[in-house]
């Protein structure tokens, strides 16, 4: 039972990170129908920026939470600027190009960001300092620490904030309208280009947040760290029904739980033949099953064939 609760906590924490990143994918996909492959790299840049700030200010004797907050703000600013430029440089000129063209520039961007990060920050693993008191609390035999609690709380707050933004504000209405039909939205006085930029900026802020929390939780940063979370977050977005915000959240959390329980129990189930090093395949198996059995995702609506 202890293991069960522990895996549940780990899964929720991991799932929160996936959910935040998945939202970025799903919003972009919902509006311009593009898999933004560089999104995982935005998370990586956020984490590395935060690491730089934390190590640079580390000697000043600031309290840990303030340091974390400052580095988070820096990461969000950098990531927003980055994602805004990515959209402007690599995607906007190709809005009416053949479908594969922006996908290729997206992959190119992902590779470019990874390479640049490797040049700027060097390829070694860097340990992310422990900024919050790390003594764990005991919950029914399992343990949870401050960082994990912070992740759960921050994610919950952010997600409700985003729901409010999208469903109640003017910008949110413009986003939904653009996702529905950019041409008609344009006729109604919405500026699709601005809305798309705003979407990329919001997505980047969420990714930066996820990156900092990921780094704080796992304690190490490196230029390739964005790839797998990015891929899995996209899986989560598809799992929940791409283009659907609530779906991305549910998909992210569920995927985190599936991975966590899968990794925790696979050894026991297969009698030790397969170990937790197979953790990474659960996401993809889930993906394949979902797409085969319910291609529109958990909460997605059935749309007429989109190629």
């Amino acid at each position: 039972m202890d293991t069960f609760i522990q895996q549940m906590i780990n899964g929720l924490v991991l799932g929160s990170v996936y959910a935040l990143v998945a939202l970025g994918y799903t919003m972009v996909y919902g509006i311009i129908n593009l898999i933004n492959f560089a999104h995982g790299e935005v998370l990586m840049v956020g984490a590395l920026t935060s690491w730089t700030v934390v190590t640079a200010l580390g000697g000043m004797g600031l309290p840990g939470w303030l340091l974390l907050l400052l580095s988070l703000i820096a990461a969000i600013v950098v990531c927003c600027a980055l994602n805004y430029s990515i959209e402007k440089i690599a995607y906007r000129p190709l809005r009416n190009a053949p479908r594969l063209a922006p996908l290729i520039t997206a992959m190119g961007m992902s590779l470019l960001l990874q390479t640049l990060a490797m040049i700027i920050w060097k390829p070694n693993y860097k340990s992310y300092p422990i900024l919050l008191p790390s003594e764990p609390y005991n919950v029914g035999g399992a343990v949870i620490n401050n960082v994990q609690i912070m992740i759960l709380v921050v994610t919950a707050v952010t997600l409700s904030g985003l729901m409010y933004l999208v469903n109640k504000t003017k910008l949110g209405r413009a986003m939904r309208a653009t996702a529905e039909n950019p041409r008609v939205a344009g006729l109604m006085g919405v500026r699709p280009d601005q809305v798309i930029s705003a979407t990329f900026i919001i997505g980047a802020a969420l990714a930066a947040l996820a990156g900092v929390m990921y780094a704080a939780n796992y304690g190490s940063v490196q230029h390739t760290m964005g790839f797998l979370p990015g891929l899995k977050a996209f899986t989560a977005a598809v799992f929940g029904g791409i283009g659907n915000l609530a779906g991305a959240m549910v998909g992210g959390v569920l995927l985190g739980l599936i991975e966590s329980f899968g990794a925790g129990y696979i050894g026991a189930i297969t009698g030790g033949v397969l170990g937790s090093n197979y953790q990474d395949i659960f996401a993809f198996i889930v993906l394949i099953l979902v797409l085969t059995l319910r291609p529109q995702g958990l909460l997605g609506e059935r749309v007429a064939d989109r190629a």
Partner: protein
Amino acid sequence: MNFKENRLPAFLVAGVALLILPLIAGQFGNAWVRIIDIALLYVLLALGLNIVVGFAGLLDLGYVAFYAVGAYMFGLLASPQLTDTFPGIAAMFPNGLHTPWWVIIPLGAVLAGGAGVLLGAPTLKLRGDYLAIVTLGFGEIVRVFMNNLDAPVNITNGPKGITGIDDISMFGVHFGKTGHFMGLDFPKVTNYYYLFLILVIIGIVVCHRLERSRIGRAWMAIREDEIAAKAMGINTRNLKLLAFGMGATFGGVSGTMFASFQGFISPESFSLPESVMIVAMVVLGGIGHLPGVIVGALLLAALPEVLRYVAGPLQAWSDGRLDASILRQLLIALAMIGIMLARPRGLWPSPEHGKLAPTAAPLKTRDDPSVPQPVGPNVSEATNESHPSGTRHV
């Protein structure tokens, strides 16, 4: 096709040039021939992927998995790996496991083709981006297994990879050894060059014939509009599976070649960036257009490798941060972005598309078969139901 009679001399010149190319490049060192060899392998891979992505319009981001299947099969059947792990196999083959090429290459092709059909089967209903992400996941699953199948039974030797893979020897010619013929030396890289060249030529002929065949036309019909193709009586299920299978076969054969050429394989060589690179070759060159695909593959494979040899001063200047492999990655990334922005249809796109483009431009729906063509009185209705991709804003 009117130029047929004028083409013969050009073909002859090109043929002779291709035959003596490694001998000339060899004068500057075998490293250059090696670059050409690798480029040829990529051409073969790109030709295979072009069947899936270019002809049938199925975006496959896990293509490298089939390459891995071929390579690992060769690696397992022609190296000490299996005999070291299983005493039973060692007892059966006292001289070590050295499966001949005429078993291994067809087997690799069939196995990879089977894997292609296996992947194709559950993804038949998916299109576009969804298919891309599932195939990507499939590639990752294969890589995770390659990485972890060293325990409890050591099959793939995990991240350390398989070493000591045999060179190919056929018709008494041992490709791994330097041969002498007409007073010229033929080192390993040159021998493999001719082997790869033959395979690439076979590949080009097969693709060219496929493109013009009933099957090829059916694939293109599926690519342009699957529902219409189905309505025309095309068996879309079987043809899509066939496309996956054919493409994977190319991947498998390239994989066996790669394994014997390198003599060493590890999961590292079959990671996602490799898949992305092959897709990039196809798309950058001109999707679905054979000369374009070949140009794309040669360019992306060879150019960064060539620059690798001039990277020395840059490395010194940048304090070791810009080494050759980083520079290579940087160039590939910049090429992917730059070429796509400058020429979204690729460097050398197929002419049919060029002709259609002007008439299609106002509708913006040519590339998106999902969008119902707004014809007749239902225009407004059709646009409302359609996905935003079809009615995108500038």
